[in-house]
């Protein structure tokens, strides 16, 4: 793909291989105060998360003190009351919606990315930017027709309909991410393999897969996170049968007496899959969120 041979251009390019080879080592430490400042800022940002986890293990009375009782005894009561509130159906719905939509996204996005990188169609950049532009359309602007449509064909409160919508929501991101991965497949090697008489399957396995598989993993994690987090569509289009975890969480919006430990337990349980996926895909996170523009 890359046609630039001038090393100066490569060095300043956004994510060209040249820039990465020349990646500078981190700035030398300098004064230790900078390290201390960085730790302080990191702890400040992590503090609400740490507070959430700690409070989820406190009793309701210990959770509602001012100042907070950090050293209060730990208990699982918050989790017990959360799981007593029937959270399993929404958790399973969320898991279904996220996993199935992610699989559908991959089935559609991988061939599309192939047609935009390895064997590009004419005007492939226009197609790529069309995908990106759909991501800029606010979901709220299409909400009403989706509701009316779902209502008229009887798929309100139906997890399959939600799966299809999540697929369309994540497809542009996946196409962009997969394209940027597949663009790194060595086309010369593919052509050489072809000349040697290698079949399509052999070629996919030996040349394309090593580059594409990490990309597929990163893309899946990003799509999973976005589907798992989604509220507006789920809130509008589901009610009792197909409601997802974020919809379940909205029932905690109004105060119900002493319930902070339970709220924190709920927030921890429902955020856990995203935290796990996000920490696993830490390096790819920024790429997915910037729609593949930053690697």
């Amino acid at each position, binding site marked *: 793909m890359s046609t630039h041979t001038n090393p100066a251009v490569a060095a300043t390019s956004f994510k060209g291989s040249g820039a990465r080879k020349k990646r500078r080592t981190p700035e030398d430490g300098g004064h230790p105060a900078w390290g201390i400042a960085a730790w302080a800022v990191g702890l400040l940002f992590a503090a609400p998360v740490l507070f959430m986890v700690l409070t989820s293990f406190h009793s309701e009375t210990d959770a509602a003190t*001012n100042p907070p009782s950090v050293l209060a005894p730990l208990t699982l009561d918050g989790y017990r009351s959360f799981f007593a509130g029937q959270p399993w159906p929404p958790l399973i719905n969320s898991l279904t919606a996220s996993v199935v939509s992610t699989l559908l996204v991959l089935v559609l996005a991988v061939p*599309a990315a192939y047609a935009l990188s390895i064997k590009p169609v004419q005007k492939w950049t226009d197609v790529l930017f*069309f*995908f990106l532009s759909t991501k800029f359309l606010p979901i709220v602007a299409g909400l009403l027709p989706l509701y009316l449509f779902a209502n008229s064909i009887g798929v309100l409160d139906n997890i399959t309909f939600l799966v299809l919508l999540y697929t369309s929501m994540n497809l542009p991101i996946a196409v962009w991410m997969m394209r940027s991965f597949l663009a790194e497949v060595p086309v010369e090697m593919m052509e050489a393999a072809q000349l040697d008489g290698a079949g399509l399957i052999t070629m996919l396995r030996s040349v394309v897969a090593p580059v594409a598989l990490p990309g597929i993993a990163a893309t899946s994690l990003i799509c999973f996170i976005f589907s798992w987090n989604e509220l507006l569509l789920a809130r509008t289009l589901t009610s009792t049968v197909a409601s997802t975890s974020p919809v379940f969480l909205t029932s905690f919006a109004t105060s119900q007496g002493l319930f902070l430990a339970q709220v924190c337990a709920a927030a921890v349980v429902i955020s856990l899959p995203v935290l796990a996926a996000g920490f696993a895909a830490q390096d790819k996170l920024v790429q997915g969120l910037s729609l593949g523009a930053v690697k």
Partner: protein
Amino acid sequence: MTTATPAASELTPEQRTTYQAPQGQAARDRREARRRRIPLLPALVFTIAATQLPFLATIVISFMDYRALRPDQRGFTGFDNYVQVFTNPAIRGAVVTTILLTATVVIVSLVLGTAIALLLDRRFIGRGAVRTMMIAPFLVVPVAAALLWKHGILNSGYGLLNGVLTWIWGIFGSDSPPQPAWLTDYPLLSIELSLIWQWTPFMMLILLAGLQSKPGDVVEAARMDGAGSWQIFRYITFPHLRRYLELGGLLGSIYIVQAFDSVFIITAGALGTANLPYTIYATFFQQQNYGLASAQGVVVVIGTIIIATFALRTVSSLFDEETGR
């Protein structure tokens, strides 16, 4: 595929690599182009059907008097809904709130994100651990984050923020610390705080990626020539970061203009915090005035297109450099 001319398909590979009649070549090119399009089509058709058709329907409904509660009155009314969008003070208030909320969150997150990225770009003990801690806020499910801020942090009675104020005042021997009722006295600030907390890590990640792609030899050369830290930042680092700042700002704007979860949870649109997404949701769900909700949606889309045009241009300039065109 099916309309390929026999002349092209009957050729053996050897013949194809030798001389081709101009017409046969053109047909072969067309066939090849069509073959290349096949893997793309399912994704393209699905995306058009799922994103463009609903929006077209929204445009049609926006010119209708369409209320769920009065089905007998349904019909086209021209620009009535749009007149209402631009004259209704509540909706104009929502426009102002949306702009204020988006601008505040994006600018503050960008400034904090840049500062933190500069800190994290240095070498210090536990750099990876601090980076992981910094990302954590972004990985809390948005609804959960809004609940955490509403009940756990900003609650005036037992929230963490007022608790910390009690602690600090206690250290200095005071038993009357300030205990603001954040959610009711500063409702918009409450939403902004929770969003800034979630979005600063996003900006930090983009800018850190920018800093780490900065060619190191230029900085070294400048240092050799006696440039100070501020000069290096001002004349080398900042110009290099500019496009990453633009990218972060534009993507942040597009995501935060659509912010619904935090408004819905923290204030439920009360006390002047209803932004456009929340207002549309309320017009649609509570008033069940479908025509008006659609007109509001169209206005949001036009606003987003204005931001998106700039965003697309930025992404496209980054993209051109990457592909070396």
